[in-house]
């Protein structure tokens, strides 16, 4: 017995005692995360394969998905929501992220005065509750009490004002821009941090080679912050396809007018919980949630396995 022990010790001389503390310290987070995130997710995925048949919950295979994509109304609602969601995402990618990068680039100019003030001021909306943001913008843009028509009148632009949130053609763009206004601080901060991380030697070397100003941004800084831009794109993608709150506070659960701002989140809410006289349908809600999960999973996988691997990283 004791001989075996010594043998073991001889064989593995560096064997350390079992590190129980790792498990102990991980346990609370693991348990809480499992209880509030992983179990509900698995339950949701499971629920999408079940439906009430003759008053009983039964396994129905893929028939919920068949209904979602086969039923003319439900599928029309779904595709409408998906299309709106894609537009919502594109507007964020085209407006929010470039502006965020531009702001970060300007903030990182060493001689800029009041940089700290600008940085905080631009970031503050991100900290505000979406309820407040939604309410404020609804008031600003209100054709009756809003400050927007009055301000536009001051500069003689009253003719250009329209009840943007109420028109099917403009509502989605307006809500997207409100969201951009709220969240532009996040890409700005991330890019700002990435820009600050670029060592001065690199920039000085560039200057020695005669690369300054704009070409310095395009040729030196931008390639170095590309990984951060990638992360931001993924965050935007996930955030946009999970979005619900702002649309709900500004346009209501119906995503009006006439479904023009209905995105996957609001469609899920209405289907799962019901709205006004429409009864909630958990199985169909879970089915939509599953499809949303798959869309996000596909997007993130595309980034992780295709784009991120091809991205060049620089070590300083």
């Amino acid at each position: 017995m004791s001989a075996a022990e010594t043998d073991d010790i001889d064989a593995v001389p560096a064997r350390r005692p079992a590190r129980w503390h790792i498990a102990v310290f991980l346990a609370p987070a693991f348990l809480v995360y499992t209880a509030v995130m992983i179990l509900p997710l698995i339950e949701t995925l499971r629920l999408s394969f079940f439906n009430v048949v003759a008053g009983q919950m039964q396994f129905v295979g893929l028939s919920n998905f068949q209904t979602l994509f086969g039923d003319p109304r439900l599928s029309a609602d779904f595709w409408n929501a998906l299309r709106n969601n894609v537009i919502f995402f594109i507007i964020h990618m085209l407006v929010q992220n470039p502006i965020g990068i531009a702001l970060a680039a300007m903030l990182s100019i060493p001689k800029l005065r009041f940089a700290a003030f600008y940085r905080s001021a631009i970031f503050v909306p991100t900290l505000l509750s979406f309820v407040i943001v939604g309410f404020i913008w609804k008031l600003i843009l209100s054709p009756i009490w809003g400050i927007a028509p009055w301000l536009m009148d001051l500069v003689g632009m009253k003719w250009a004002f329209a009840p943007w949130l109420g028109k099917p053609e403009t509502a989605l763009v307006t809500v997207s821009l409100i969201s951009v206004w709220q969240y532009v601080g996040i890409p700005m901060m991330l890019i700002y941090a990435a820009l600050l991380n670029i060592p001065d030697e690199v920039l000085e070397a560039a200057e020695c080679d005669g690369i300054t100003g704009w070409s310095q941004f395009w040729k030196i800084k931008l390639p170095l912050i590309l990984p951060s831009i990638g992360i931001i794109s993924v965050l935007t993608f996930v955030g946009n396809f999970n979005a619900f709150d702002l649309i709900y506070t500004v346009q209501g659960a119906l995503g009006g007018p006439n479904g023009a701002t209905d995105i996957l989140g609001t469609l899920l809410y209405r289907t799962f919980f019901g709205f006004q006289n429409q009864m909630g349908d958990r199985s169909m809600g879970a089915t939509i949630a599953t499809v949303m999960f798959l869309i996000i999973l596909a997007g993130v996988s595309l980034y992780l396995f295709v784009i991120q691997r091809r991205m060049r990283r620089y070590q300083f």
Partner: protein
Amino acid sequence: MTRLMKGMLLATTMLAPAGLAQAQETQLVIESWRNDDLPIWQEKIIPAFEAKNPNIKVTFAPMAPTEYNSAVNAKLDAGTAGDLITCRPFDLSLAMFEKGQLAPLNDLKGIENFTDVGKSAWTTDDGKTTFCVPMASVIHGFIYNKKAFEEVGVEVPKTEEEFFAVLDKFKENGTYIPLAMGTKDQWEAATMGYYNIGPNYWKGEDGRKALIAGTEKLTDPQWVEPYATLAKWKPYLGDGFEAQTYPDSQNLFTLGRAAIYPAGSWEIAPFKSQADFEMGAFPPPVKKAGDTCYISDHNDIGIGLNAKSANADAAKTFLSWVASPEFAELYANAAPGFFSLNSTPVKMEDKLAQEFVSWRENCKTTIRPSAAIVGRGQPNLDLEMWRVSANVINGSETPEQAGAETQKGLDSWYKPAK
């Protein structure tokens, strides 16, 4: 593992309130969507009940109307709902009863105070079981600013032609927005618009029953014409009505900036407390002078017993009191515009409320067409009518398209009994 975890999660949420309820007196919680009425319940109704039943404490817990059904259904499923559930009329509450979430109230003391018509909204299709105590109905019509009418020198319109003539006068005059209504929240367009003026076209109950029987369709002229009339409202609405919400409309009217407000009688109490001008009301104008008028007198609100309530006895005491003439009088006067369904006549002090109720003498009454039987399926007819009514006013859909779309949705699940 999952079961254990679920058990733990459940136990912590369920047992926590249970521990608190150990006190001497019984606590009752009322779930409701009438958040506008919170002060009325807290200051008038509940004290009156508690004075008689000192060992029962009642809490009124309202939430936003559009979220009520989803929230209360989720609470009922999870077993965390209050003891007393405010009942929406017809199909929604019926669904709750069929799931065994509402207790039958046939043998409740006081339920005999209601006629079959009063109970119809909360009785099973076979007419045998009643599951909510009827509280009130609401009547649709138009509330107007008397001062504005005098200033511009117009009379209360009786026919549709006169109605539009009045609107034209207001538009010419320019001081007032002729009609205070917006389409942003969508439901205003249907509830205050289509359901309000429609009964004159589809002849109230005749049309509604024919729709259920399948002998009339939503594409028939009597169902499409009200949309056409709604579309004609567009030029008389305020600037930017597309983005005007329900509270915006209410404020425009009570601040005296609008002349006419397409209304439901539930507005009376809040309007009285906010507006400083005199208000009058008129029923939806008929097409030709002398036509029979029809009004929407919709059984709107009842109250039922959560079948899983731990305090069923105390809750029944409360429900019996709600069914009593005493409550009827208290409620009808505390919340003018909610008209009692009790068969004992109720004396109402409020002039405006009296005006609304007086229409019952001359006009035939009906309920909202999407509420009973045809409101049961997917897509929900009520929500569809919200959407198309708003579209028609916005001009993004023609009345014919609106009719065709709603009928198509109805056809997809509803087969009238032959």
